[in-house]
């Protein structure tokens, strides 16, 4: 078998898993990552749904399985990727260019910038935070308000930047519902006396054990789920947040004060990837994620020969889906290399 070189853009879990599979098959791998450490978003997370497993366990396992032969270029920004003589030339902010037989876009999402939902007051009101910030608060045992008090009431707002025409994101980010349930349970474990209210449109508990977690949240922890989208939030004089919504099951408007409001931010294609995607003329969907060659049959190929996609650059995914997608992308790349060898 001819040894080929694959450039993987992104050192998150999809990049790591694809690198492992491809490397095991004898191919040379270079991972490009803008961050200092590998692991992407998972590295910044604490506990995972639905089993409350430490995210570091997943990451450690992936990193431990990574062969030493893999070239890792961290803190590296790719400026351009050009096709040259059957290869891809990767120009980065490093001195040397890298030549590759195939390019894999692995992962690449940003969490939604909550400031764009102006009516929720993120970045303006002291006690409005994102789900990312809540994760860190709980991890660091700092589950307190901006004033340093323990929150008596918390509102968790689902679908922030997802399923929302106003911010041009009609798609569902898929993981936010179950993340809210997971984080609500963590709040109750950390502070049993805190009341937690989840404001949702639909609860999309699609994965294995997700529904069970949702039931546990209600039955064991007394977390309250209110079907209604938030209309606005305001800051009261005592720095609590006044939330207004409609309880669409009761058909009544609702207004309450909470000490902390958590915005469950969705996913968008990483802004850092956009210029590269545009330069390479990769097709994007109306959700602005990269379009594969065929969503059902060839979900990891693109219209550009030798350019592949895996993970969240083609849309929101959870961890098992991302890892499976990475493995699938690795198989697609190997199949592509076989075709190249047969041609020659």
């Amino acid at each position, binding site marked *: 078998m001819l040894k080929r070189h694959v450039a993987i853009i992104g050192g998150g879990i999809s990049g790591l898993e694809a690198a492992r599979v491809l490397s095991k098959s004898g191919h040379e791998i270079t991972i490009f990552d803008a961050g200092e450490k590998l692991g992407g978003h998972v590295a910044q997370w604490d506990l995972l749904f639905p089993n409350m497993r430490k995210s570091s366990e997943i990451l450690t396992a992936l990193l431990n399985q990574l062969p030493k032969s893999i070239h890792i270029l961290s803190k590296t920004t790719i400026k351009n990727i050009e096709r040259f003589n059957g290869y891809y030339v990767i120009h980065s902010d490093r001195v040397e260019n890298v030549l590759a037989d195939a390019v894999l876009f692995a992962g690449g999402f940003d969490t939604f910038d909550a400031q764009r939902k102006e009516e929720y007051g993120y*970045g303006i009101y002291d006690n409005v935070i994102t789900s990312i910030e809540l994760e860190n608060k709980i991890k660091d045992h700092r589950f307190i308000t901006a004033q340093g008090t323990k929150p008596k009431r918390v509102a968790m707002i689902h679908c922030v930047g997802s399923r929302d025409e106003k911010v041009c994101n009609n798609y569902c980010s898929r993981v936010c519902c179950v993340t809210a349930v997971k984080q609500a349970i963590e709040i109750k474990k950390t502070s049993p006396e805190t009341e937690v209210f989840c404001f949702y449109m639909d609860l999309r508990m699609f994965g294995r054990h997700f529904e069970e977690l949702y039931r546990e949240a209600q039955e064991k922890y007394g977390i309250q789920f209110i079907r209604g989208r938030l209309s606005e939030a305001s800051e009261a004089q005592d720095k609590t947040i006044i939330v207004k919504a409609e309880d669409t099951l009761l058909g009544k408007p609702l207004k309450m004060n909470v000490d902390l409001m958590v915005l469950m931010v969705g996913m968008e294609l990483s802004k850092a990837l956009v210029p590269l995607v545009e330069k390479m003329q990769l097709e994007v969907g109306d959700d602005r994620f990269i379009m594969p060659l065929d969503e059902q049959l060839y979900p990891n190929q693109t219209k550009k020969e030798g350019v592949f996609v895996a993970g969240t650059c083609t849309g929101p995914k959870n961890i098992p889906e991302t890892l499976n997608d990475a493995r699938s992308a690795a198989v697609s790349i190997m199949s592509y290399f076989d075709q190249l060898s047969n041609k020659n």
Partner: protein
Amino acid sequence: MKVEGKRRLWQDYQKEVAEDKFFYVRSCIRQTFFPGSERAFIKIIGTELGKEINEDPAHTSCTGIGYHTDIVPFETTQTVVARQFSLMTEAGLENYVPSCITSFGLYTEILETWEHFPLIEEQIRENLYKATQRTFNKPKNLAHASDVIFKFRHEIAAKAKHKLIDVHTGRPLRVVEHIGCHYSKMFPHKGIGGAEYPYVLAGMVEAWGGEVIDYPERRHCCGFGFRQYLVQANRGYSIACSQKKFESMQPYEPDMIITNCPGCPMFLDRWQYVIGEMEKVAYGPNGQMIPVFTYEEVAGLVLGYDPWELGLQMHQVNCEPVLDKMGVQYDPELKYKGSKGEFLGVPAIPEFLKCC
């Protein structure tokens, strides 16, 4: 509250406002409600700042109230507005400045409609020509009159005789700013500062030395909202809207309210009296009410205009507490005298509420 967060948002909602040569169109109702405001605007822009400001007595209502109450069809409204634009065109001007917020919202809506549906614009041009033989150019710049004052707020501050500062204590006056719903709630990018945290009035207050109060119900309608008021049976809802706002702002102890809509100062001013007398409640200190002003009146006070020339005696809520804090000199004897010295009559003293 992180003010820097608001400032970051305000960056996204900047708006171009013309420098000079304005075609000004008055409101149907403001001259009745607050008769000195539009006159003050013309004086500030024309005399004080030396800009060219033109009017045409042939201009009519934009039909806004009729349109929003489903009495006037949209095609008719557009044709009437097209005629207003023809008056501007005939005057050789292109910077259109309506005094009324509802008009501003309606003009914006019509221009947006024409941009997205050019065939409708063609139809309206044809309607206007058939009816009046007129043609028109669309405004090069459409700005509400409060946008214009906002643009020149620092020039006004430079000429200030008084500031929004309590002369006795040196404390900035605490000001509730309330924008009309039709200013930016329909088209956030057409309003300075957007819809959620509008800056048009807040910027004036800041520039003139005051401090803006952010209170929970700041977004809520003043209570005018046409269907709440024009349908007589709904007036309880109208007054409830105003009450909700007053109760929300009261704990912040505002010195005054500033508005940029024809209806808002009217309702925040008049309903305050009504609620006070009905419910025996005062939202200001010592059994008094919270004075309500238009932005032109505030600009006029800052520039040292006589409060009675500004028409402040026409307010239901007495403005004297704010005048005293700002150090504005006034003659109480002249309060209820007209421009020719004639006696205008004195309103009845409220039963519960305290006047000066």
